[in-house]
């Protein structure tokens, strides 16, 4: 990360989120008054601060946006000015830095309001679609309906594919489970303190970097227990694939029973095998949890929200 920051600094002063509350108090900010509103009411006073920093040779310049987030602004009845305040704060610091700065930073409120709204909606639609249709119906859709929808040549190729039911089952189970895992990852990230995201962005990580290096490593650790039960679910759900002719464990037990008429022996064998797989997976995941645990952190943290 040091080389990353060095690279950023090489191309000019870096602007990140921050605030100058104490300096404002000296300049006459009233008690209880929100310093961020000065971006609009007293831009010249605000600008004098970063300018002084730049003149003194500082290479990391803050913006006066530390409290310009939804929660704080709502407390002052200013949530409508979220965007305005953030934009004004950044442009003031930018002017002070001579307009040649790279802006990185936690204009979090803005990020979470406009640019990503369609991404968020797309994700919601994906989750709702795959979560709300029964797995059996999804299997049938992939197996029987998909070949009819694609051009005839591909459809024929799909139908004649050797082992087609196996691939269909993998795809169907994959999509079905991905929607559920998506919900858990979201819950995991939401359960992290908001400060972690802010800190990452203030340090100059880009949003993808913040996710890759800060948020996801913690979120995945937090959601390991629910992921374990999702893992167990996918094993159980794989039995549904017998409806599209895949000879998995339950289908084999059923075939055994049909050939030999030994109903209870066949089903008992399958049941025991499922239980053994369950135990192995449960213990394996517990060992993994222990291995990746962050000392003094996850053990004390409550389990992720459902």
């Amino acid at each position, binding site marked *: 990360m040091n080389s990353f920051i060095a690279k950023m600094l090489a191309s000019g002063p870096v602007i990140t989120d921050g605030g100058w509350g104490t300096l404002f108090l000296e300049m006459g900010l009233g008690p209880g008054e929100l310093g961020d509103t000065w971006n609009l009411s007293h831009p010249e006073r605000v600008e004098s601060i970063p300018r002084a920093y730049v003149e003194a040779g500082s290479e990391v310049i803050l913006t006066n946006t530390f409290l310009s987030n939804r929660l704080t602004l709502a407390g002052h009845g200013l949530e409508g000015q979220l965007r305005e305040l953030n934009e004004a704060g950044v442009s003031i610091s930018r002017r002070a830095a001579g307009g040649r700065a790279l802006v990185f930073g936690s204009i979090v409120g803005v990020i979470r309001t406009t640019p990503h709204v369609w991404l968020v909606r797309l994700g919601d639609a994906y989750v*709702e*679609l795959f*979560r*709300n*249709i*029964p*797995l*059996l*119906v*999804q299997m*049938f*859709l992939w197996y*029987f*309906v998909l070949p*009819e*929808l694609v051009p005839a040549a591909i459809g024929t190729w799909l139908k004649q594919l050797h082992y087609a039911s196996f691939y269909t089952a993998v795809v169907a189970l994959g999509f079905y489970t991905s929607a559920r895992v998506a919900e858990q990852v979201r819950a995991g990230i939401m359960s992290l303190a908001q400060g972690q995201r802010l800190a990452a962005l203030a340090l100059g990580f880009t949003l993808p970097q913040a996710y890759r290096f800060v948020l996801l490593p913690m979120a995945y650790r937090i959601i390991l227990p629910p992921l374990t039960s999702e893992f*167990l679910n996918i*094993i*159980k*759900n*794989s*039995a*549904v694939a*017998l*409806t599209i002719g895949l000879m998995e464990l*339950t289908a084999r*037990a*059923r075939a055994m*029973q049909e050939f030999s008429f030994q*109903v*209870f022996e066949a*089903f008992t064998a*399958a*049941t025991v095998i*499922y*239980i053994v797989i*369950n135990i192995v997976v449960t213990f394996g995941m517990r060992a993994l949890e222990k291995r990746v645990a962050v000392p003094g952190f996850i053990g004390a943290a409550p389990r992720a929200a*459902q």
Partner: protein
Amino acid sequence: MFANFDFDVIVRSLPYLFLDGMTFTLTLTALATLGGLVFGTLLAMMRLSGIALLSLPAAGYVNLMRSVPLVLMIFWFYFLVPYIGQWLTGAERPIQVGYFASSLITFTLFEAAYFCEIMRAGIQSIPLGHIEAGRSCGMPEFLILRRIVLPQVVRRMLPEAINNFVSLFKATTIVSLIAVPDLMYQVTMVIQQEMKPLPLYTSAALTYFAVIYVVAGLVRLASERWRNRIYA
């Protein structure tokens, strides 16, 4: 892409599919939920009783039910229930119970395991201090249960329980495997006659999606309100 999408076949088979099939699916889901709730409460009481003779079998039952796929359970009970009936009534031959009773028993027993866990989590989430506070105010035990414990347990359980109801609704599609005439089975039958999987499977998927989307949305709304009322 949708050139061969035949809407007519949906219209023609509508009463057959949605009246018969959907009614059956909903009846099965509702009855199994009720049965699961009763039996699940019993299991939760057994698990929380602190008496090993009661709690160990209940725990074993719950873990067994939760580690075996529903499909396998359906096959198990499809073959097992007639013999259990014979054993219970002392009849000479295995008793034929029919597809409805067989699938209802399976789902009830299966649901009971899940409800037991939901109930247990709900009861265990109540801090002991609440009960002690009630006692120190001089409330009788029954009043503590009714005014302090149960309102919180129900609120905490309700979203989970309704989620469970939704997954049960989805899971009932599996009974079509043992030729139970639920919505999915009816769809498959019509497809075998008409040879038109595209419109029929798609409309079945849309139906399930619509029902579940609406129910799940209501659940989310309700659970948010409840949560706000707890901490209000």
